[in-house]
């Protein structure tokens, strides 16, 4: 009964790891408690997005991940 949370970029630095297994289900309201204050405040940033199984949530506060889902926490992008 687990959800995999993937930390990308500077969120991986904050988390001190690239991914973590957390108990399913996982909702937006759970994140601060599960991930800690630092990550939770980074998630509040409008430019931080959340994807579930590769689908980016239009409203990240609607997060509702089930067992086996992969939740990715995505800081602002920069490529090229």
């Amino acid at each position, binding site marked *: 009964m687990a959800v995999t949370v993937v930390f990308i970029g*500077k969120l991986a630095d904050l988390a001190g790891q690239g991914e973590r297994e957390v108990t399913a289900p996982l909702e937006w309201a759970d994140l601060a408690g599960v991930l800690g204050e630092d990550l939770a405040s980074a998630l509040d940033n409008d430019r931080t997005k959340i994807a579930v*199984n590769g689908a980016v949530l239009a409203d990240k506060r609607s997060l509702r991940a089930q067992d086996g889902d992969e939740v990715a926490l995505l800081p602002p992008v*920069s*490529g*090229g």
Partner: protein
Amino acid sequence: MARDVQLLEKGFSPGKALGLFAKAHPLSGGIASFVGKVRPDGDVKVLELVSYEHLTLPGMETLANMVEGRWPLDGLLIHHRTGYLRPGAAIVLVAAAARHRRDAFEAVDFAMDHLKSRSWFWKREKRSDGWHWIEPREQDHEDASRWDI
């Protein structure tokens, strides 16, 4: 429309890729292209480009769809590195072959603006004082906003 979208884990030669692309489109009137490299300025020792497998390459394909929907092209190439890069190494190559030159130009321009500030990449630089995450410059956001994306 021939499409060549690749997320590359190793170094590549933009000149060679561009030569092959040109050969693959002998009938096109024009080919516009852009090569972006790691700038060897400051004390940047290494650049890391982070990708996320569930988003980065699928997002590049979505970008190619957008470009093809917007401009009549004969061919489109988007190659982008992931992983660790040394100064001077090629990060990105975008090329568009088209009957009309403005279509080729705008397609490349648009794709580059998207890759810089709207695609699923994350970038950090290692300097003498350690690693630093890089966010798009204000200019990059302004460039992208020209296209309503």
